[in-house]
């Protein structure tokens, strides 16, 4: 399996994401935001956490309009896999690949701590390695993780089993405790928590490792 990790000015989880992909057995190429093409034969694009373009205008807004994002959109529209974590999730909502938006945390504070998540669905290459309803511990680190969408969109996400992860107790005000969602074809996942920061025993927890392992397993046999 081959992964591309996009690097924007201000990305700061790009190398952590590459380490997690490699630990699961992927080949990884780092791709600069000004590039106008993805490397050939890429199975999955990772959009890392951080503060792309200093969060200017809105989190993810400038990155979503960068040259490489046109290619990431085309990759997703061809049925390619895309994983956006934290700022990556914000970028995916700004590109329109995922519905809704991420607003300032309801409590206005930047929150950096490990939180309990509940696996909402096992029907995706990202979550197949978990049990439905399983509780896992994954760190969050964000100021703008308050997921919001219209009632119709939230109902549709629930009906179509596209809520990948929920907070056990929402720390940021997210509607329906949403921590991560899937696209309609279930191949694009955006999530605020950082599975790549819980992927090695030295991180203090390994509950995120199953996401990368199940992804690598599914794409190796695809």
């Amino acid at each position, binding site marked *: 399996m081959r992964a591309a990790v996009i690097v924007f000015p201000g990305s700061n989880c790009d190398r952590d994401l590459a380490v997690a992909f490699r630990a699961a057995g992927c080949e990884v190429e780092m791709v600069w935001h000004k590039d106008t093409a993805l490397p050939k034969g890429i199975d999955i694009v990772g959009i890392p956490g951080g503060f792309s373009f200093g969060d200017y*205008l*809105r989190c993810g*807004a400038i990155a979503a*309009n960068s040259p490489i994002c046109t290619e990431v959109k085309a990759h997703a529209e061809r049925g390619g896999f895309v994983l956006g974590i934290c700022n990556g999730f914000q970028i995916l*909502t*700004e590109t329109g690949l995922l*519905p*809704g*938006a991420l*607003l*300032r*945390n*309801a*409590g*206005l504070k930047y929150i950096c701590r490990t939180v309990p998540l509940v696996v909402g669905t096992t029907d995706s290459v990202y979550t197949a390695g978990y049990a439905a309803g399983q509780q896992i511990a994954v760190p969050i680190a964000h100021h703008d993780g*308050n997921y*919001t*969408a219209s009632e119709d969109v939230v109902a549709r996400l629930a009906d179509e089993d596209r809520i990948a992860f929920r907070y056990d107790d929402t720390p940021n*005000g997210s509607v329906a405790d949403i921590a991560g969602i899937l696209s309609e074809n279930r191949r694009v996942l955006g999530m605020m928590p950082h599975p790549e920061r819980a992927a090695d025993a030295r991180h203090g927890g390994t509950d995120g490792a199953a996401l990368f392992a199940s992804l690598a397993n599914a794409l190796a046999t695809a």
Partner: protein
Amino acid sequence: MKARVHVMLKDGVLDPQGEAVRHALGGLGFGGVEKVRQGKVIELDLADGTTEDNVREMCEKLLANTVVESYSIETF
């Protein structure tokens, strides 16, 4: 021509920053503030021939996230 774009969270979208400002005003003794909404003002210096429609396109594509924000344009 210049354009001034006002971007606000849509009604019904919780604005925790506006709410914090309202609390702070109350703490300073300013009674009677029932609601505060905080937004952004973006000023654009435009070359001749740039139209209000162009600015509207800029708003739709980048300046506002129309999922949660509304915008208005003033030209002068």
